[in-house]
């Protein structure tokens, strides 16, 4: 068993009378890729804000340490900085100038944007901008990468490419990842564990584990089955007679 990076124990968060998360327990282990899916407005972003330390729970405990980087829903690149200057934000702790340049060059090559460092975000395509975001989050030292629907503003084909890109980048720069998404395919194609949240107040309704190595073909039977199971869990597809071979289990302390 890998060691735990972050542990939520009976965490609740309410805003005034609205209870968004209720009694949620969750463990993120070092090196794993966890995807969180659920109906819109179920509190996925609230959960991310708690994980990043931006927000505090109303009750319950969050234990964990380490540097957290976040990739946001809408582009968080500074439009007044070049691609290079944006990426360098992730290297602010590195004092040595030559070392910064070296790491920057390496990263630009890794994301396939060498020669584009001097471009401003608005001069780049949506996919290129997203790769710069990933580069900024992955450069330097960090432990946990939080992603809030990072590819939702991209067109479908670019989104498929970016999934492959993310898998490849994580191969080079391993990180623990929590991905919040409403794209079920994305979750099934990338995650080791898919957590399906219930409607508000959110709880983990089901956990689906995938052991297939990344990058995974979208049409691989295990990915398709995982998609099917999530859809069934969300009540969007009948749970047919076919028995899924994907390992599934209920979270601790719950009976299905």
């Amino acid at each position, binding site marked *: 068993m890998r060691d735990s990076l972050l542990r939520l124990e009976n965490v609740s968060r309410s805003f005034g009378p609205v209870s968004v998360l209720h009694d949620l327990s969750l463990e993120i282990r070092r090196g794993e890729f966890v995807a969180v899916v659920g109906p819109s407005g179920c509190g996925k972003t609230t959960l991310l804000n708690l994980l*990043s330390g*931006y927000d505090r729970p109303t009750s319950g405990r969050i234990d964990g340490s380490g540097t*957290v*980087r*976040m990739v*946001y829903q*809408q*582009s*968080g690149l*500074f*439009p*007044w*900085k070049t691609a290079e200057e944006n990426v360098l*934000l*992730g290297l*602010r*702790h590195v004092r040595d100038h030559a070392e910064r340049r070296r790491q920057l060059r390496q990263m630009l090559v890794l994301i396939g944007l060498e020669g584009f460092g001097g471009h*401003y*975000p*608005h001069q780049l395509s949506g996919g290129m901008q997203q790769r710069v975001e990933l580069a900024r989050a992955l450069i330097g030292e960090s432990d946990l990468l939080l992603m809030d629907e990072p590819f939702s503003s991209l067109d479908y084909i670019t989104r498929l490419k970016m999934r492959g890109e993310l898998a490849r980048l994580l191969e080079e720069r391993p990180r623990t990842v929590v991905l919040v998404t409403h794209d079920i395919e994305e979750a099934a194609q990338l995650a080791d564990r898919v957590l399906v949240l219930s409607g508000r107040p959110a709880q983990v309704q089901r956990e689906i584990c995938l052991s297939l190595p990344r990058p995974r073909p979208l049409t691989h039977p295990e990915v398709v089955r995982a998609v099917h199971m999530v859809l069934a869990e969300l009540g969007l597809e009948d749970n047919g007679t076919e028995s899924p071979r994907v390992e599934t289990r209920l979270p601790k302390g719950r009976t299905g």
Partner: protein
Amino acid sequence: MKESKIAFRIKLLPVLLALAALAAWAVLSNMGVFPRSSFPAPMEVATGLGEEFQRGRLFQDVVASVYRVMVGFGLAALLGIPLGLVIGLRANARAALLPFVNFFRNLSPLAWIPFAILWFGVGDTPSIFLIFVSVFFSVVLSTAAVASVPAVYFRVARDYGLRGAELLTQVTIPAILPQIITTLRVTAGLAWLVVVAAEMIAGRDGLGFLIWDARNGLRNDLVVVGMVVIGLIGVVIDRILMQLTRIPSVGWGYER
């Protein structure tokens, strides 16, 4: 080849139109459609221009007007931008000051003329004061728009440890710079309008005084000299400020 032809035509067309207008003016005044005294001929204006230029008065008037605009406009920008930042970033300051600023922004600067003369007499100061009040409140309002800068930029800044002076110079100000530049261009034009009116009433020199003095001396040719010079300098001021929009790091704000 074709593109250079188009570029040439774009440069040539306004010159041709100006020559045509000048010719029409000459023909009209030669035909004596209007009385000479109220419709000076181009040649008279050209002679008047040469006269004023040789006596050195024109140069002095230009310097006086430009100096007043630079001081009034500069002071308004220098004080307006910081106040706008405070109003934009502090909800209390916004609630208290915004209605006040809005009131004065919508008050015609010319309404201040009686008090400008009462308080400051004649000379540079009343003009500078009038320019200041016509620019200051607009600059404050457009800088206060920092309140509507997308919150994601401030979250990203926080994630990467930007705070204090760095936050101000690397995030807050760049985020509103395109808007501030647009406001500076508009208000510089306004300041140039106001200085003429101010000098007519409270000046002993300057281009506004030149026009008023010429009118009192029944020298309508010199009135036109003043008009031409004022128009040309106004265009030059706008051209100079337009260069600010070419700064690479503000380009994103003008992409549509």
